C-alpha cells in the first residue's frame, strides 16, 4: 500500500512539475521578459568597462561593491553565468513555444484543422446545381487554384488552400534562433581565438589565447617573409599585407599573402591581418660628402660595424627613434676612430647642418623599417551551425513576409424546396480585412450574375 501511495505521489509531483515547466516555457510573457532582460544586460556590457587588468581586479576585491560586481561578473557580462542562464532560458522558451504550436501547424498543414476568421452566409432561391459552379469558379479566381470538392445531391463543399508554405515560417524562425545559439555554444566549447606577432624574416607558432591571454602553440609555423604597408597619396593607409609561408613538420605547406579583409585559412584555422608594429630597422641610409666633394651613400645595418669609405673610422648604429619628437627621426651613431675612446653622436633627419664624422659631412637620409605583423588566429567549428541558423532565419522571414496562408471553404446546402444556403468561411494570416472584403464581393457578384 505504502509503495503504491508513494509511487502515486511521485507521479503526481512529476506531473505538476511538468505542468509548471510547460506553463512557464510556453509563455509569451516570459519571452518578452527575456528579450527585455537580455537587452538591459547587453546595455550594461556596453557601459561598464569589460576588459580589466589583473590589478584592477585586485583593487575591486577590496571594496564591497567591487566584490559584488565580481560575483555578478560585471567585468565580463557576456560571459557571465547569469547572461548564459538568460540565453538558456530563452532557448527553453523557444523550444516550449515550438512544442506548443507545432501540433496546430501540422493540423493546418494536413488540412485537418480549419480555424475560420470569418463566415458569410447567404440565402438563395435557386437550386444548388444552378449556383455551385458559378461560386466555385469565382472563388477559384481569387485563390488562383482549383478547389477540393466533396458533395452529395443536397450539399456541396469546396475547399481551397493557398500558400501552405507560409506555415513553416514560424517554426523556421524560432528554430533558427535556437540553432544560432547552439552554434555559438559549439564555438565557445571547441573553438579558440588568439593573437600572434611575428617579426619580418622570422617564424612563429606560439600565440596568446584571447581573452584569457594563456600561451598556446599552433600546429604549424608561420614564417613572415615580408610585411608591406602602403598609403594613399593623401596619407591614409591603403593596405597592410603580410607575405607568409606556413611550415608544418619542416615542410612548406602554404605560401600566400594575408591582407585586411582577405584572411588565409589552413587546416580549418584562419589567420587574419590585424595590426602591425614598428620593431626596429633593417638599415639606415646615410649620405656622406667627402673633403674632395665626392658623395657616397652608405647603408648601415643595425649591429654591424661599418667602415667609412676612406680613413680608419668605423661607425655603429646605437639607437633609432622613428620620429616621436618634433625634430623627427633620429639615430645615435657610435664612432670608433683608431684607439680613441668611442664617441656617440645623435643625428636628426631634419638637421639643417650635416654632422662631421672623420673626414665626412654626414646626413641621416632615411631608414628602412622592420615591422612585426600582428595576426589574429581563429578557429570556430560552430560558425557553420550559426550560418545554417542565419539562412533559416532569413528563409523564415521571406516565407512570412512574401506568402500568406489562406483557406476558404464554401458550403452550398439545400435547406428547403426553394431555399439554398451558401456559407463561405475563410481564414487568412495577413490582410484579413481585405481578404474578407474580396471574398464577399466575389461570391455576391457570382450569385448575382446567375
Amino acid at each position: 500500500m505504502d509503495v503504491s501511495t508513494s509511487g502515486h505521489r511521485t507521479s503526481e509531483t512529476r506531473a505538476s512539475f511538468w505542468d509548471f515547466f510547460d506553463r512557464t516555457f510556453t509563455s509569451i510573457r516570459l519571452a518578452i521578459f527575456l528579450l527585455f532582460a537580455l537587452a538591459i544586460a547587453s546595455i550594461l556590457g556596453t557601459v561598464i568597462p569589460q576588459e580589466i587588468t589583473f590589478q584592477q581586479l585586485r583593487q575591486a576585491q577590496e571594496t564591497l561593491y567591487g566584490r559584488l560586481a565580481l560575483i555578478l561578473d560585471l567585468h565580463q557580462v557576456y560571459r557571465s553565468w547569469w547572461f548564459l542562464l538568460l540565453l538558456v532560458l530563452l532557448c527553453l522558451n523557444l523550444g516550449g513555444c515550438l512544442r506548443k504550436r507545432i501540433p496546430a501547424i501540422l493540423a493546418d498543414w494536413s488540412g485537418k484543422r480549419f480555424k475560420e476568421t470569418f463566415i458569410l452566409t447567404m440565402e438563395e432561391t435557386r437550386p444548388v446545381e444552378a449556383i455551385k459552379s458559378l461560386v466555385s469558379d469565382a472563388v477559384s479566381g481569387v485563390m488562383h487554384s482549383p478547389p477540393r470538392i466533396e458533395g452529395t445531391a443536397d450539399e456541396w463543399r469546396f475547399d481551397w488552400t493557398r500558400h501552405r508554405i507560409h506555415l513553416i515560417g514560424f517554426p523556421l524562425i524560432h528554430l533558427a534562433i535556437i540553432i544560432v545559439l547552439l552554434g555559438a555554444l559549439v564555438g565557445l566549447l571547441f573553438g579558440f581565438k588568439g593573437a600572434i606577432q611575428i617579426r619580418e624574416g622570422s617564424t612563429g607558432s606560439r600565440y596568446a589565447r584571447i581573452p584569457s591571454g594563456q600561451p598556446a602553440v599552433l600546429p604549424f609555423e608561420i614564417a613572415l617573409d615580408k610585411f608591406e604597408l602602403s598609403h594613399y597619396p593623401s596619407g591614409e593607409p591603403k593596405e597592410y599585407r603580410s607575405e607568409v609561408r606556413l611550415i608544418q613538420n619542416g615542410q612548406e605547406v602554404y605560401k600566400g599573402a594575408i591582407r585586411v579583409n582577405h584572411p588565409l585559412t589552413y587546416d580549418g584555422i584562419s589567420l587574419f591581418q590585424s595590426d602591425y608594429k614598428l620593431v626596429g630597422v633593417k638599415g639606415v641610409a646615410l649620405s656622406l660628402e667627402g673633403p674632395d666633394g665626392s658623395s657616397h651613400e652608405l647603408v648601415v645595418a643595425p649591429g654591424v660595424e661599418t667602415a667609412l669609405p676612406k680613413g680608419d673610422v668605423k661607425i655603429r648604429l646605437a639607437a633609432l627613434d622613428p620620429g616621436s619628437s618634433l625634430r623627427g627621426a633620429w639615430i645615435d651613431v657610435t664612432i670608433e676612430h683608431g684607439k680613441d675612446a668611442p664617441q656617440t653622436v645623435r643625428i636628426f633627419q631634419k638637421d639643417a647642418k650635416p654632422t662631421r664624422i672623420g673626414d665626412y659631412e654626414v646626413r641621416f637620409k632615411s631608414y628602412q623599417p622592420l615591422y612585426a605583423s600582428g595576426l589574429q588566429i581563429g578557429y570556430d567549428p560552430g560558425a557553420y551551425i550559426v550560418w545554417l541558423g542565419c539562412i533559416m532565419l532569413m528563409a523564415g522571414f521571406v516565407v512570412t513576409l512574401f506568402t500568406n496562408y489562406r483557406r476558404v471553404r464554401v458550403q452550398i446546402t439545400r435547406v428547403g424546396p426553394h431555399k439554398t444556403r451558401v456559407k463561405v468561411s475563410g481564414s487568412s494570416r495577413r490582410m484579413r480585412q481585405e481578404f474578407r472584403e474580396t471574398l464577399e464581393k466575389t461570391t455576391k457578384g457570382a450569385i448575382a450574375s446567375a
Partner: protein
Amino acid sequence: MTSTDLNTFVTFAYLASAVIYLIAFVAARSKSQLMQWAFRLVVAICAVHGASILYRWYESYELGVGHAPLSNLYESLVFFAWTIVVALLVVRTAFHADFVIVAGLPIAFIIMASTFLIDSSIRPLIPALQSNWLVAHVVTCFLGYAGFTASFIAAVMFLLALTSPHVAQHLPPSKLLDEIVYRSVVIGFSLLSVGIITGAAWADHAWGSYWSWDPKETWSLITWMVYAAFLHARLARGWSGHRTAVLSVVGFLCVLFTYFGVNYLPGLHSYF
C-alpha cells in the same frame, strides 16, 4: 557641380516641399490637386537625391579611390535621409496617408542639413572597409532603420492624437496609424535581421569572429530585441494602440543610439 552641391539643393528642396505639402494639407481637402503635385514634387526630389548618391559613387572613381558612397558619417547620413524619404513614399502609397510625409520630411531635412557641419570630401577607403560586404551590410541596415523611422513617425502621431480630440481631428485615423506603426516594424525588423547577419558574415570574414560584442553590434542586437519584443507583444499578447506606439518610440531611441551614440564608445565601427 559636385554631388555635395546637389545635396545642398536637395536639402532645401525637401524643406520647400515640406512647406508646400503643409500648405496643401491645411488649405485643402485630401486628394486635392495641390497635394497631388506636392507628392510628385517629393518623388522628383527623392529621385534627384538618389541620383546624387550614384553621382558621388561615380565621382569617387574619377578621383581614383572608387568605392560605394557609404564609407563615412557624411555619406551614411545622406543615404539615411534618402532611405527615410523612400520609406515615407512607400507608406504614403500603401496607406494613402499624406500626413506621414508632412511629418517625416522635416526629419529628412534636419538629417540632410546636419551634413553641412561635417567633412564632405571623398576619402579613400581604409583597409577595414575594403570588402564586398560593405554595400550589402550598410544598405540593409539603413533600410531597416528607415522602416523603424516610419514606424516612429506614425507612433508619435498616434500618441499626439491621444492628447486631445482637437489634435486628433487633424491627424489620420488612429487605426491607420496603428497599422503603419506595426507594418513598418515588420519590414524594419526583417531588414535589420539581414543587416546584422551580413555584418556578422563580414566580421567573420575580416576579423575571424562573427560576433565580438563590439558596442555597435551589441546595440544593434539590443534594438533587434526591443523590436522582437514589440512583435511578440503585438502578435501573441494582442498589444496595440498606445502600448505598441510607446514600444516603437523606445525602439527608435535604440536605433538612434546604435547609429550615433555608439560612436562615443570605442569599437570597430568608430569610423562611422
